Every structure is written in C-alpha cells, then in structure tokens.
C-alpha cells in the first residue's frame, strides 16, 4: 500500500513536469494555429521550419554558439581544473572562490554586468560578445565537473608516471587526461546544453540583429508563438535525447569492457 502511494506520488510529480511538454509537441502537429483546439494532424509546421529565415538563422546562431562556447570553455576549464588541483591550499581556495562567484551570481546580474563591460569598452554587442558571455558562464561548470575526477585520482598516479621516466607533458597526456576524460565530457555536455538553453545572459549580451532561439522566442512571445517554433524545439528535444542516449550507451559499454577485464 505505501509502495503504491509512493509510486503514485512520483508519477504525479513527473506528470506535472511532462504535461506542458506533451502539449507543446501536440501543438506542433496541430493543423490549426489555435493553441487549445485540435484541428487535425499535420506536418506543415515542420515543413514551414526551413522556410523561415528568422528561425533557421536563430538555430544556426544557437547551435554554433553552443558548440564554440562549450569547446573553448572545455579547454580553458579543463586546464584550469588541472592547474587549480596542483595548487597549494591558499591559492587553491582563492581560485575556488573566484569560480564560485559566477555560480552564485544570478543570471540577470551576469548578463547586465557583461553588457556594461561591452558598452564601457565600446565593443558592439553581437555574435562575438554573446559567445564570450557563454564561454564565461560555462567555464565554472567544466571546472566543477573535472575537479572531482582529479580528486578521485590516486595522488601518486602522476608521480608514478614521472618516476617511470615520463616528462610532465607526457604524464599529463597519457595519465591525467585519460583519467579525467569522463569529467571533461560531462563538462562539455553540460556547457553545450546550458548554452543551448540560455536566455537571460544572451538577452543582455547580444543585439536585436543577432538572435538565438531563446531571444527570438522572447521577442515573439507577446505576438504569440507560431507552432513552427514548437516544431523546432520538438525536433531539438528529440535530437538531444538521441545524442545523450547514444553517449550513455557508449559509456555503459566502456564500463562493461572494463569490468570484463578488457578483451582484445
């Protein structure tokens, strides 16, 4: 009986989370424009998708920014995590405080402060400024994904490599990086999804001429969102789902081979 109540409760909570998403996806197949009335199944919003330059352009900007931002953030963040890990206690604490600042800052303050920076330095807001902002808010997430992996690592693994004649560079490439790779991938994925979904910071650091999907949706929210947008986000949702399932399966497989003792 209690088991039934517990499961029922979880189902209800999940229902609450999924209802709007189901509605959204249903709307994307609705023949009519109405948000509430079902007027028959249609794929016309999906066909419309690629005829709307505003949407394709925003999609292009969103995806390229997410890719570039997660790429740069992963490199800078991974290097930083390795550096921070090697530091003595006091500078390490200072660096962690520095890392925590943007994490504890509300998005709106991050966005506004960067906007002020760009205005103050007379840099025109647009694609590059949005990219810089995304890299900035992504780096701490990469660091926080990689650092725990480094801490998990046997303190002496790196030294063992040096002991066996490896130069620091070689030890870094062949011992540290392979070990922290799962953390690096987590950080990169997290950055990518955060970038894709970001609205507030993008809103303040770009110009109305360079819109990503979120800012485009925002500017259209008043006029009413076209079902085309629903179609697009349904597609992106499914794409992300497949991507992450694939990664998850690969990770599981790798785990299996490892526990099986590695076969060649």
């Amino acid at each position, binding site marked *: 009986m209690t088991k039934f109540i517990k499961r029922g409760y979880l189902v209800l909570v999940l229902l609450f*989370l999924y209802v709007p998403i189901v509605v959204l996806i249903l709307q994307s197949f609705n023949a009519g424009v109405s948000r509430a009335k079902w007027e028959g199944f249609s794929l016309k919003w999906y066909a419309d998708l690629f005829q709307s330059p505003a949407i394709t352009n925003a999609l292009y900007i969103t995806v390229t920014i997410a890719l570039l931002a997660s790429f740069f953030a992963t490199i800078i963040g991974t290097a930083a995590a390795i550096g*921070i890990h090697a530091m003595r206690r006091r500078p390490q604490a200072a660096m962690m405080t520095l890392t925590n600042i943007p994490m504890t800052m509300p998005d709106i303050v991050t966005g506004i402060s960067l906007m002020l920076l760009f205005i103050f330095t007379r840099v025109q807001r647009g694609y590059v400024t949005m990219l810089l902002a995304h890299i900035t808010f992504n780096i701490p997430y990469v660091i926080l994904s990689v650092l725990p992996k480094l801490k998990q690592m046997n303190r002496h693994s790196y030294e063992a490599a040096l002991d066996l004649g490896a130069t620091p560079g070689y030890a870094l490439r062949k011992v540290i990086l392979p070990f922290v790779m799962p953390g690096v991938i987590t950080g990169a994925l997290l950055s990518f999804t955060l970038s894709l979904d970001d609205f507030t910071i993008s809103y303040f650091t770009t110009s109305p001429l360079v819109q990503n999907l979120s800012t485009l949706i925002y500017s259209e929210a008043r006029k009413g969102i076209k079902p085309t947008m629903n179609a697009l986000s349904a597609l992106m949702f499914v794409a992300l789902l497949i991507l992450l399932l694939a990664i998850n399966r690969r990770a599981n497989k790798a785990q299996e081979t490892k526990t099986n003792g590695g076969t060649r």
Partner: protein
Amino acid sequence: MISMRFPPWAIGAMILGLAGFAVMVAANVRQNRGVKRSLFAYPYSLWMVVFTIIPLLLIAYYAFTDRSGQFTLENFRTFWDSNHEMNKQLAELGFDPAALGGARGTVNVDTLVYSLWMAFLCTVICLFLGYPAALFMADRQFRLGATLVILFIIPMWMNFLLRTIAWMSLLEDNGLINSILTALGLPRMQLMYNSQAVLLGMVYNYLPFMVFPVYNALSKQDYRLSEAAMDLGASPILTFWRVTMPLSLPGVISGITMVFMPSVTTFFIPRVLGGGNTEMFGDLIERTFLSADNWNVGSALSLIMMVLILMSLTLLRKVDPEGEGGSTI
C-alpha cells in the same frame, strides 16, 4: 554577422596578459622542472578577471555614480523612493512636491518585498513537493531511482521559455483546463495573469533543482545508519526524523539555494504568466536598464539584489559549512 571593434587599449591589455603568461612559462621551463601545472589556471584567471571581476566592479561603479560620473548615493535613494528624482526636479522648477501629492514612491521596495515573498513561497512549495519525491526515489528497495533522475532532467532540455509558454495554452481563458471545465459543465476560472500562475510557473521550472541535490544527499547516505537507528528501537518515523532527515540537510540547503536564487531574479515567467500585473525584481532591473535606460539606478538595484543573495548564502553556509550538498546535475 560578426561585427565588433576592440578599442586599442583592450587589445594592448590582452597582449600584456599573454606576454606575462609566456614569461612565466619560459621561466619555469628554464628551471628544468617542466611547466608547473598550477600555471594551467592562468588563462582562466585572466578570463575571469576580464569577464567577471571587472564587470562586477562596473556595476558597483555605475551604482555609486550619476550620469556625469560623479560619486553619488542618489541611486539608492531612488530605490527607497521611486519618486525621488521626479520630486527633485519638481523642486528645482520651483514647485512644492508635497503640494502636488508627490509622496514617497514605494514601487521599488514593494517589488523587492513581493519578489522575496514569491521566491520564499516557491522554495517552500518546491521543498514540500520535491523532498518526498527525492526520498521515494532514494529508497533502496526502489530500483528505478537512477532512471527517474534522468526523467527529471529530460524536461529541462526543452527550451524553458517555450515550456513556460506551454503553460499558457493550459491556463488561458479558452485553454485546455478551462475547456475541460466547461465540458464538465463547470464555470470557467481565471487562471492566468495572477500571482498563482507565476508561482506555478516558477515551481514548474525550479522543482528539479530541489529534487537533484536532495536525492544526491539521500542516496549517498549509508543505509546502515537508518538500520542502526531501527536496531536501537527507533520507529521508521523517528528514524527518518532523527537520522535520515538531519543527514540530508546539506542537500536541502543546496536545493534551497538553487531554487531561491533564480526565483528572486526571474524576469521572464512573471511577464508571460503574470501579464503586466505582477512585476518582480528581475523585471524591474531589466526595465530600468533597457526601457528606462537608467544604468545607474539599474546598477544600484542589481547591487542591492546581489547583497541580499550573498547575505542569504552566508546564512545558509553557516548551516552547511562544508557545502557538501553542493551538487549540480
């Protein structure tokens, strides 16, 4: 599309930073100890100074200066009294503001109080909805826990603006819920454009941020601790109350932080679901910056918000000094 120009001094500073890095690396290599690994954090520190520290200092700078760049505290007075500037101008023009009914404008303070109240409600609701969910998921007999965590994450991949807008289709006057009500012969309800709708949107968006850290804290807990408690004669309820719950507090604290912060500062949800009726502090800041174009007052408001958030974080840290619940997704 890529249109920007960097002023020469910015480029100069960048070159200087890189040169400093190169010198440090070279010095290390010459000492025959290879590159010190702590130097790997150098590009990051440089990045953070330029894109986090300096921007924050800029907010402080604008908050304490007027439009001509002179030091002033007027921006904070405007926060306290939103009519302050208007009344001052009236006085300069020779009018008596009091005679014109120019009393203190409480809009800004009211908005702040309202935002804090809404964020508090949202946090409490998320805690009461999320804690049981996390507890049931972390149950050792329940094998689907890890899978359910993924089910909680997946909705977050849908653009959050669209998800919020989707609630409109449910709550509208002729939306899904009202359609069902009419079909059942019940009267329509006003579900949109009020505080409850905004609260619903906030809870909907931030609930996972409460579930994850609490689930983490609970599932990491050694189950033998609660077994020990029961072994010593504690009933399941007492065991939960005396052992399981206190030990999950770091996760709860972390969840509270992760829900409260974005709730205070949200500026999209109230606009969509609250119409114009329920402005929150995030909206106010955005409006002051972009519509009223008043960076100085806007900066002052941002600064006030940051101080409030820092204060509440410090308070929470006291409860959880290790920050062990500090887990994102």
